[in-house]
Structures are given as structure tokens and as C-alpha cells.
């Protein structure tokens, strides 16, 4: 019997969940909760964090993570663990467009260093930074599974493959 085989649910369930998030966010999280057995609402922690992050301009505050913990009746530290483990959760503000540049083997061989350098020069920021106008931020990521189109990057939910500096300019110029 360990805390992996049974849910580590808080002893006292959060009494007033209606005060957490907006009704729309709650409805979206609830859709995920019902996919899991009763009492295992904490299994929905990953989608819950994703939804909350989306609604907060792409990043999570400690307060939001605490709210997710309260909403799922789980210890806050368990939410922090998940949020710090996965690279798709952002714990610092990001730009409206998060540019994720793959620097893993295939992309590196095909020139991801040049793509990175071009982006840095064009935007005046490097990995982990946000442009002053808040429009772009850059992030170094590991393989996104698109080696056939290396070098590649991801912006929002879109993959952009076979990149060249010109191609990058065209893509960025086309973004709001």
C-alpha cells in the first residue's frame, strides 16, 4: 500500500469549489474528471493544468496551481511536482506566441543552431526570455517527433518544418 496505489486525497475536501476558476474552466476540467474512477479526480491534474494555463495567457502561477490542487482535493506539492516535471507547463510569463525550437539530434544536424541564432538576432531575446512587447518568447525543447522535417519549431499548436531563416521570417511576420 503506497501513495501510488491509492489516491492521496486531502482529508478535508475543499468545501467551496464554486469559487475556484470560472464556470467555463470548471466545466472543461469536469469533463476530464469524469473519465476517471470515482475518488481519482486527481488523475485529471494534467489536463486541468493545461486548461488553466491556456486561460491564463500560457503560464501558471503558484496561486493557480494551488487552486487546481484545491479543486482536485490533492496536496499542493503533488501539483507542483507535475507542473515542474513536464516541459509544457510554464511557470513564468511567456509571449503570446511561444516559439519552441527543437535542438535535438536530427534538428541540430540539419541546422537548428542557425535557426536559433536567426531568431535571437531577429527578436533580441534568447531561450527563456520574452520580447518587450510580450509578443514572442523562445524556448528550447527536446525532440517533438518531427525529425523528417528537421529543423523544426512549434508555435502554439502548429508545427513548422524544414525551416530556413527566410521561412522563419515569413512565419513570424504572418503572426498577429
Amino acid at each position, binding site marked *: 500500500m*503506497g501513495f501510488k496505489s491509492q489516491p492521496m486525497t486531502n482529508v478535508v475536501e475543499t468545501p467551496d469549489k464554486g469559487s475556484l476558476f470560472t464556470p467555463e474552466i470548471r466545466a472543461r476540467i469536469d469533463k476530464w474528471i469524469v473519465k476517471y474512477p470515482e475518488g481519482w479526480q486527481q488523475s485529471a491534474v494534467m489536463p486541468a493544468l493545461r486548461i488553466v494555463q491556456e486561460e491564463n495567457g500560457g503560464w501558471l502561477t503558484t496561486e493557480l496551481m494551488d487552486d487546481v490542487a484545491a479543486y482536485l482535493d490533492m496536496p499542493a*506539492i503533488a501539483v507542483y511536482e507535475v507542473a515542474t516535471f513536464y516541459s509544457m507547463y510554464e511557470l513564468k510569463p511567456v509571449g503570446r506566441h511561444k516559439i519552441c525550437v527543437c535542438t535535438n539530434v536530427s534538428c541540430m544536424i540539419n541546422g537548428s543552431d542557425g535557426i536559433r541564432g536567426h531568431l535571437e538576432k531577429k527578436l533580441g531575446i534568447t531561450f527563456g526570455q520574452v520580447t518587450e512587447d510580450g509578443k514572442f518568447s523562445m524556448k528550447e525543447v527536446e525532440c517533438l517527433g518531427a525529425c523528417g522535417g528537421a529543423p523544426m519549431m512549434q508555435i502554439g499548436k502548429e508545427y513548422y518544418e524544414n525551416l530556413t531563416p527566410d521561412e522563419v521570417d515569413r512565419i513570424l511576420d504572418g503572426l498577429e
Partner: protein
Amino acid sequence: MSEQLVTIEIDGREVKAKAGAMLIDVADEAGIHIPRFCYHKKLSVSANCRMCLVEVEKVPRPLPACATPVNDGMKVKTQSPLAVTAQQGTMEFLLINHPLDCPICDQGGECELQDVAVGYGSDVCRYVEGKRVVADKNIGPLVATDLTRCIQCTRCVRFGAEIAGVRELGATGRGEHMQIGTYIEKSVDSELSGNIIDVCPVGSLTSKPFRFRARAWELVQRDAVAPHDSMGSNVHLHLRNGEIMRVVPKENEAVNECWLSDRDRYSYQGIYSEDRLTKPLVKKDGEWQEVDWKEALEAAANGLKAAAGGDGDQLAALVSPNSTQEEIWLAKKLLQGMGSDNIDYRLRQGDFRPGQPDRPWLGMAIAELEELDAVLIIGANPRQDQPLLGHRLRKAAMKGATITYINPLQLVLNYRSSQWVTTPAGMLEELAAVGKGLNLRRGIIAQTKAEDRHKALAASLKEAGKAAVLLGPMALAHPDASMIWGLADAVAESSGATLGLLPEAANSTGAGMICEAENNGKVRELLENPRKGYLLCNLEPSLDLHDPALAGKAFDKAEFVVALSAFRGDSLDAAADVQLPLATFGETSGTFVNAAGDWQSFAGAAKPLGEARPGWKILRVLGNVLEISGFDQDDCGQVLAEIEESLAGRKPENKVKVDVNEERWMPAEGMARIGDVPIYAADPLVRRASALQETVHHVEAAVRINAETAKGLGLEEGGQALVSQGDGQATLPVVIDETVPANCARVQSALAGTEKLGAAFGAVTLTKA
């Protein structure tokens, strides 16, 4: 796990084991050592350190012994080239980021990593890149962190989740960036937090008060029994030059398993507090003067004799239930020699009406607590009162036991339970209603109405395989304690549950057996009708008594008060005429009888500070000076033999003979005081343990009331309230606390500022100050 036995072979030895048991357990049982870091027998298997890799025949790769169940005919090699190479490889990886700071590490010399590195590590490090550094975190006054040393075994995280029952520490980040911590700046507040030091296999988590105070190999280890709660946890004292440097648990599966509460672990600091009494003191013309032992003992003997004036009944002894059997026995014998039977240990009890058990106890072995299926607990907060008994109850709850509390406070628990929170007077109604649910009709039970929840609890107590009704310190301190005993007994009897007590102090059970409460003094009577002479043992009048105001008056009136005390304090200075310096925890030999009636003797380990002497010796010599016969014991063992002979196999028992129709002393209307004892204020020693007093569990005297009650009285958070109880008054800050029921004021006992108030539980009035 099935009971079926299988035969396996480890290193050529045939071993029988239960099918499905983990290989590492089987090997441990057979005495075959497999190195490990993340595996701990009391925690879930995580198999993340990979140190226990062994070779299993017909399996092409090494397997972790902690996560490999045994099968019939399995052939295991722990020393084969494959196994040893795997272990050495793991060791090399673990040491990549581990700093070479053993010379300044507190764990040095008692470090699992160091030990295993000797066996499996290489003498050359092939890793030349930069090592990982992790910033230390402040997780409170008890545990120091050196997280760069962490090998990420996650034992501390699993301890929190599975044993302490609160997830405070976690492993955030991933891969090389993984860190143990709380993520946000926060202290680790569990009452069992110190155990993470023991489970940590490296020097990442160490004892903060012990930090840099001694090296492991300079320490001498002695056994002892923890002196606070009624668990009787077994401990090792670690001494250097006769001084106790730290306390760690001694494994005893029947008592504390391998754990220790923070109170038992860190209270040793109190021994060396500044107000330790180290010389005998005699009050001359109102001034305290240091004297030698001879003069002090003569002054004590003459004073007591003069106070008695030939009438033994004019003498009384109040002994703390934290005193040893030997101390209590000799105090009783001393009084008897002077013609008095007035001895009592029930310092925090207010109701002494007859019919309550003479020699109350837990009613079962400690380990049996976790086998219970249904438990009703009245007036107790085991997590604070007896943290490791609380842990056993948590284990029962995790196995599915239904646990119900009837308390005048909402508790913060680490398992699911039903809590019926009501006023002190209302506790009786709730209990009576459970009786009604069992179809009882006598006394006040007849006047109550059983609601569905009462009936459901009654049924669950009745139907459970093993059930218990347990009383705690708040029930004993209740003005209607005898009624609570009576009702609890009625419920237990008719439901087939075991009746038990969760005693507050290390030797409550033993003291009950010696004092034979029914025949001897009763604290309240001994103070209400002041005697001329008092002998006080190991207590502070303003903090350790149920009604400090009453006690203060009685000691003022008394002609002569002798105090055996390890510490000086204002109230003792005011009350006593002679103070004899008492050896305390670790310094004295003796015997404690724990909640389950286990007699546990221990020897003195540390040298008593200054001229302090063990209580049994002081009382023995005092007996000689008074020329009472039977005071010629040469050692503690002789005293113990005498006690055992005299008690002649007498066992504790919870025999209750209370008519549940007695007059109610707790008024049903008006404001009621709830005077529970804070965890780190329970006795003179722990009150002086400096690190414990810096934790979040340290409290200052205050009036805690809920918002509604406060509104009705015109009080608000941060304001001051005048608390009046009888003719005693105190002005205390107001704290809004929603765990307190309406019309109740939680004014905790044993805190400075409450000494002028009366009984811990009783009527009280609040006004805006």
C-alpha cells in the same frame, strides 16, 4: 500476498519464503545483505535508486531486489559478476553529483552512502564535468537541509505521504533538475517530521539542533524510554562526555516501530536549559539561598515534620505522571511513613467522583490499535497527545476502520474520520445518544434522542470485528469525567467494544497502579482543603495542574512545601520552601509503564547536571533523614523489585462503576472554557526544548473563539479579552478560530498567562478588555 511457501536459492543457500514476497525482504530475513538506498521496509517500493540490482537466473538483465517478487525455484546471485558490475555502475552514477564533503557532513560516519561506497564504489571518479548544486531550503527549526547531497531516493517524500500522512515534501523538477523540497517557502510541520532525518540515507536531511555538535564516532549510545507521552517510545541517547547530544529512535515493533515523535526526539534540549535547577535551594526570610544537600534535606525533613505536627493527614504529595515508578513509589512510602495516604498523580483531572477506574489503561496492546475496525474516541487529539498512538490509529483508518471523534474542538487529522464537535457539556449528550442507539435506557441516556448518525455508529461498534471506545486527556479533564467514563463504559459494554484510555503521560498507567486512586488522595480535595505540608514532584504548580488558581491558594496557605524539580520557575519559587534539584530524562534510572501496561526500565546515561540527583535517591535519603524504615535500597532495581512484590502481579483495568445519572458539573448554558494542553507545553522538560518552541506548534496563551461567538461578545481578532473564571482573571489576546464550537472559549492550559485562571474545563466569562 499468499501464505503459500516457496523455495528459492540466494547465493547458493536455500531459503523458504512466502510467495510474492519481495526478494530484498527475503534476503534480509536470511541475513544476506543487498545494498539499497530507496528501499525502506516501512515505505512503499519505488525502485528508483537501482542499488539493489541482483542477478536472477534465466533473466538476461539484473533486477532490483526491492521490486522483484520471489517465485518457486528462483535462483538469485547477489555477488555474481553481473550483479556486482551493475551495483558498481549504479554507485558510480550516484556519486557523480554527490559532493565530497564527508568531512563537514553531519552524516559522516553513519551514512548509508558512505558505507555502500566503501563496498561498491571506485577509488577514482571518471566524471570530470561540473557537479550539480542545489540551494538549501529552510524547512523549519528541526530539520537542516543540504540538498546538494541528495541522491533522490524519495524516502522522505514517501514518509510524508505514507507515514506522517501529510504531503509536505515533494520531488519537483525532472532528471538532473529534480529537487526535494516544498517548492514554496514553507516549513515541514508534521509532528513526526524528525523521522525524515533517519530515513534519509545521506546527509541531505540532518538534525538542526544537533548540527555540527559532534561526530558520530565520538558518541556513546545508551538506551532509554521517552519521557513524555504514554507511548513509552524506545530511544537511543547519544552522549559525548556525559552530555546528551541527541535522541534517536530505538526500534521496537511492539511500541514505536522505528519511528519517534518530534517531542521525544528534540525535548533533550530542555535538559540543558538555562533555568535548570542545579543546586538545592532553601527559602530563608523570603530569599532563596543555595545550600548543600545535607542542609536542604534536613530543612525538608524538619519542615514536613513540623507541618504535619503529628497528624499525617496534614501532608500531601502531588507527583507528576511523568515521574518514574520508583519515584512515585518512594514518595508514597515516605508519606505513609509519616502517617499519610494523600498522594495523587492525576494533576490534570478535575472530577474525582467515585466509580472511575482505579488503574486505567489503553485496554489493549499498542499494536492492536491498528487492527481495530471501529473506534469511538472521546475528548482526545492523539496526533498531539500521543503522536505515535495517533499513527497507529491512522494505520487502522487506512485499512478501513471507521473512526469517530466526540470533541469540543475540530481536529486537523491525517485520515478520514467523523468528527462530532460540540460544547464540553454537549459531549455527554452525544455519547449518551450513542448509548440510546444501542437501546440503553439508564440515567441520562433515557433523556437523549438517538439520531441516525448515533444509530449508525452504535451499529458499527456492534458489528465491527474489533471495536474500541477510547477516552483521552480532554475527557479526563472534563468536569464530568466520571459521567464520561460511565457512558463510555455503557456504550463499550453493550456494543462489545473494548474500553480504553489514551493516557497523557509517560507513566500515567504505572502511577495509577501505585497510587490506587480510590484509596488515596484526590488532587482536588487535597487542594480545596489545604494541607499544611506538601511534597511536589516534577511539576510546576501554575502549568501542570488542572486548577492553577486553586493550587496557588493552597500552596500559599501551606506552612511548608518541598519541591523536587529539575527546573526553576516562578510558580515553584512562589510555592515552595525547599527546592531539591532533580535529575531528569536521561540522567536518572527508573521505570515507566506505558499506555498498554508494558513495564520498561532504563538506566541513567548522562551525568546529572550540577548537584541534581535522581528522584529515587533524593526520596530515599529523605526517608533516612526522617528515620522512616524501609529506605535502604542501594539501587533502582531494588526499588523496582519492591514495587513488583507489593503490586503482586496487579494489572491495570478499566473497571467503571458510575451511575450515569449523576449531577452534571459542566453547566449546559453559558460560555465554557476548553483548556486542552498544547503539544509542546505538556511537561516542564518539553516547555524548555528550544527548537520545539520555535515550531508552528508553539502557542502563546490566547482566547480562541469562533467568529460568531466573537461577534456576539463584541470581540475581534487581535483585540484583548478579559477572561474571568471564579475569582481568577486574565487578559488575553483574541484569536478567531473556527475549530472551536459556538459559546466556547479555547483557553489552553499549561501556558504562561493562564496561571490565575481556574479549572481547564468549566464555566468562564469573556468581556472586552
